[in-house]
């Protein structure tokens, strides 16, 4: 018997390669935010 996975509704799918869930997208965006702040803190340290 072939077992089909439950169909994901259109809005539940991110449609982004590498991101199956929206939670993953949010973690990625959070990571980018931390990266920006880290780089700006580094710039401040280097040139102050």
């Amino acid at each position, binding site marked *: 018997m072939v077992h089909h996975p439950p169909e994901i509704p*259109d809005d539940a799918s*991110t*449609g982004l390669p590498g991101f199956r869930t*929206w939670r993953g997208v949010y973690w990625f965006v959070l990571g*980018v*935010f931390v990266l920006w702040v880290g780089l700006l803190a580094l710039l401040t340290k280097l*040139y102050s």
Partner: protein
Amino acid sequence: MNALDYLVTLGVLVGIAAYGIWRTRGHQNLRTYLRGSRETKWFTIGLSVMATQASAITFLSTPGQGYESGLGFVQNYFGAPLALIVIAAVFLPIYRKLNVYTAYEYLGKRFDSKTRLLGAALFLLQRGLGAGITIYAPAIVLSTVMGWRLDVTIIGTGLLVVIYTVAGGSDAVNLTQKYQIGVIFVGMVTAFFVLLARLPAGLSFGDALAVAGGFHKLEAVDFSLNPDRRYTIWTGVLGGMFLALSYFGTDQSQVQRYLTGASLRESRLGLMFNAIFKIPMQFFILLLGALVFVFYQFERPPVFFNQAAWHYAADHGAGERLQVLEHDFEAAFTDKERAIQAWMTARHAGDVAAASASRTAALAAQARVEAARTATKETLRAADPRTTVNDADYVFITFILDHLPHGLIGLLVAVFFAAAFSSKAGELNALGSTTTVDIYRHVVKRDAADAHYVTASKWFTTLWGLVAIGFALFASLAENLIQATNIIGSVFYGVVLGLFLLAFFFKRVGGTAVFWAAIVSQALVLVLYFSLSISYLWYNVIGCAACMILGFLLQAFLPKLNQPQIDSNAHR
């Protein structure tokens, strides 16, 4: 500006507006006029959300902030990505599920009619006032560039935007914003590279950063816990998050942009696009301002960037004093330029001690430059008490007009106007739709035909345009323009956010408790604003916290409020 500049400016602006109106012609029912046809893709939504927030003030005033105070203002946007994640995950699905036209319609469905009206009224009040500032900013550009009277310029540009917005509706606003922000990016990036090319020969990009850093212009992150500091990482993350939650999540000018999405996915991706690119965009604009500062270390700037004010004072009895100050400024500038050149020579030679000594000399000369500028400002104010002594908003436009080639000047002036039109159109579109849906259709006339509401919406949009023009004409804008916009927002946004957070997360709190909590909290914020000197970003936190705590207390301790009320007119 010459004929080529005028051609570029008019061609870009009229071309985009005409294309937007032509592409979206025939959208005359209320749903498509106010909320768009719900076919918009994420990239357009992302750019439209960005364009609505990034007004002419962003591109005119922010480089001036970078020039004067450095990169610290970027911290103001640290809360935005966090807020946008919350909005995409929580707010957006609810708005879409309930199929609302405005964010305040949701308050009516969740609480009651009076809370809906209060939310709409607070939005209309603060956005109506803020809209005046977004007209005022490009008017400064035009009056400076063309030598026109400021009041005539405010009225002229304001009316132009009103006509454009009324003709377009929501879809046209979204579509034109996409092309307008495209022009903005091209213009600002081009200005950046031209600026780098205009720096003195032998001064590398690293040297330019060293000069900017030496004058404390690259201090982007401040970990200080001093509450008097306007921009720190704490005010940015916490206060900025509350401001962004409120602005992106409850301000109709933004909600209306992402409600046009073809699906929840498209709207979410549009918001995530902004969550990723908002901070680097603001950083880039501030860095541009910091590099303009570096440029003016090797090219003598005017002692006061608002040259019209300087010439007015010179012609009205202050000429002799201003000339003396010009000489002081010139001498200090020459000493500073010499010290910076010695500093760079020592830096290239790897002589740390000499570089440090030269930098100290440059900073001492900079103090004399600032002293001459301060004395000049006092002289200008004495000659004409109406003079605004903060000239940061004139820095970038002065650089553009004096140092960019023709054609590019036209493009940059088009950038300012594209930004002004795109944000103004979004604001007026939202003011018109909120007045129509939450006030007129809800309270005044409930069962008219769609065509009647579309006409009403056009009239309300026009009315708000005139109110904004009036505020721009009579408001006294003592502070930097972009700060003034954020201050007005922060005074009102916290309470509105409190309303929405109670609505989204605390189902047991009813409409009457929330309504009175919001009224008292708003009064409290206003009293605190006029009596304290803390960073304005904190008012977002205070207003929100006060509204939520009072809402809980009223609901818990006043028994007759415990019956949740349902707005019988919420569907209208």
